[in-house]
């Protein structure tokens, strides 16, 4: 079975600025593929090119079997898209919005009506068709927008920051829906700012300043980019900044980050440094617990590596 998305050397420049820089990857059918990156990293620009909304300046992509550069019509018929900025007309009712997007895909009559019911049911909004969209809370609106993107049963669904600005509980629920869709065979391409959401993806691509320096499963990414053991350190009598410097100076410590009330210390897997050594380096009662590497560790490590590669701090964006 051919992959759902094949991206080959995709680039996009705006004037002299390169928003997407020679990106290549593949996404399998039924996969949940996450795209993680800071503001302005080039996530939306990539999606727009894959949806045929923006012409690439170089490279090409095949989406659901149709070539973006030469068969944009076919691409549009086979994808669903939830844009970052807009997804619904607020003054229309829920059902009116969905009828419109269904109609825009050439659906009509009985089959549209049946499908509309089914989709509302699926996103957990059965019976809410007559609500004015603008009166719904943000989380529900997002689910209506998702319903609009999957109404015509597309093979690939692009979701550009679908959960921006909604609370964690609602986000969890939304990701449950994404999971179900993928289990049903739909390919999901989703962008996010949230590290915890990245953990929920089958594979994650990390975008930094238009480039894609890391791409793997969340576990794979952690192994490659945040190796070693992670300890969480709390307590002690030293001021945090001094404690940080102390810990960072120990042999085998890769990096130290502040986390809430404590510090996260990443230690080389081959170093002999243990919990007791960490506690001993700080005075007072110190609590040390083993922790797991997070996507945040990965993200920071990758951004660091990119910054060094480029030789400037420009790659930081504003994560």
């Amino acid at each position, binding site marked *: 079975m051919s992959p759902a998305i094949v991206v080959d050397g995709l680039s996009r420049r*705006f004037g002299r600025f390169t928003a997407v820089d020679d990106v290549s990857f593949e996404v399998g059918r039924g996969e949940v593929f996450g795209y993680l990156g800071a503001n302005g990293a080039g996530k939306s620009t990539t999606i*727009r090119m894959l*949806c*045929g*909304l*923006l*012409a690439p300046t170089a490279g090409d992509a095949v989406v659901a079997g149709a070539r973006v550069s030469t068969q944009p*019509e076919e691409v*549009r*018929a086979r*994808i669903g*898209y939830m*844009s970052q*900025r*807009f*997804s619904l*007309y607020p*003054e*229309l009712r829920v059902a*009116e919005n969905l*009828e*419109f*997007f*269904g*109609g*825009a*895909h*050439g*659906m*009509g009559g009985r089959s549209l009506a049946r499908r509309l019911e089914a989709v509302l049911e699926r996103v957990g909004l059965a019976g809410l068709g007559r609500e004015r969209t603008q009166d719904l809370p943000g989380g529900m609106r997002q689910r209506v927008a998702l319903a609009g993107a999957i109404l015509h049963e597309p093979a690939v669904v692009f979701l550009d920051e679908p959960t921006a600005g909604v609370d964690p509980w609602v986000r969890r629920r939304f990701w449950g829906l994404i999971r179900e869709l993928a289990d049903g065979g739909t390919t999901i391409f989703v962008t996010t700012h949230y590290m915890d959401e990245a953990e929920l993806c089958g594979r994650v691509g990390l975008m930094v300043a238009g480039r894609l320096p890391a791409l793997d499963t969340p576990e794979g990414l952690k192994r490659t980019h945040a190796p070693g053991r992670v300890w969480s350190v709390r307590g002690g009598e030293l001021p945090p900044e001094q404690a940080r410097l102390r810990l960072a100076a120990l042999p085998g410590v890769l990096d130290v980050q502040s986390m809430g009330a404590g510090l996260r210390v990443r230690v080389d897997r081959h170093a002999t440094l243990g919990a007791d050594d960490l506690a001993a380096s700080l005075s007072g009662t110190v609590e040390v617990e083993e922790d797991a590497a997070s996507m945040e560790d990965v993200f920071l490590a990758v951004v660091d590596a990119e910054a060094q590669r480029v030789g400037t701090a420009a790659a930081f964006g504003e994560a």
Partner: protein
Amino acid sequence: MRRGLVRIGALAAKEALHIRRDPFTLYLALALPLLMIVLFGYGVSLDIDHIPLAVHDEDRSPESRALVDAFTAAHEFEAVGALEDAGAAGEAFARGRASAVLTVPAGYADRLARGEVATVALLLDASDAQATQQALTRADALAQVVTAEVVQARLGGMQVAAPLSARAWTRYNPAGRSALFLVPGLTAYVLAIVCVLLTSLAVAREWERGSMEQLFSTPVGRLEIIVGKLLPYLALGGVQVLLVLTAGAWIFDVPARGDLVVLAVASLLFLVGMLGQGLLISVVTRNQLVATQASTMSAMLPSMLLSGFMFPIANMPGVLRALSHVVPARYFITVLRGVLLKGTGWAELWPDLGMLALFATLMIAASTARFQRKLA
């Protein structure tokens, strides 16, 4: 093909919902044209009516009263009272109580009886030159009528052969009422502005909200978007035409003497042309504010100045006359005046219909062609 129609239907239905839910659009489309017709119809009227006339009758004879009655019976003048002495005239003018004063000197009846020339004085506030001109013409005519009556009475009811005189007859608008002439022009003018504005906002709004991006991710084509946007506004425009023409007939007694099918076809073509111009503007500007300005400039000025609405095209300098050929309101006004006032039909008006059709086609083609289906 069937899918294309479904998509156009979906776009049109959605747009109709926007129109129904947006009070401003409804106001713009329905209330504004009516309001403009009524305000302009009265305000721009070139007729002078009811000039306040004060009378200073020193003669107080049946003859002098007959003269005064003849003046006040005409709707151009309206009696506002009698003055006691000649000095009061200046005061009446200054206070704005009267714009005309008719003085009948003592001895008016006697002079008439003796067969002498009897002179009366009409003082006019000439600060409005055009009104003065019309009042003078009217007064002259009234004086002649009264003279004729006096002469006839003197000759004991004998018919006298009138001396040879030339008379100008105005056809189509015998009373010379400017409302008859203005309402067709006004109709075209109002429709032009409102239609261009409506569609220019409709597409620019989608760009500004970002919904155009969502739309582009679906299989809808450019022409489908254009047509889908156009249809509901065309229906709205049809209602506008009916509303405005009904108001014209009702308030200003504008007749409908010719072939109404011709009028309907012309309205349709004109509406498509103007709505198309609005679409073109918003496809190019992508911004509601700029679109509003561009619409007003490009629809209002030509439709007012170069269409024959305010100024006769025949009197324009060559360059402007040439320019007027690309103003669709010009052709629509010709059709409106033709059908409503002259009773003309296909035979006379087909060239104008042809020009309207050409303009409509050009606008739709241009907006579709300029419609970039890409975001940047």
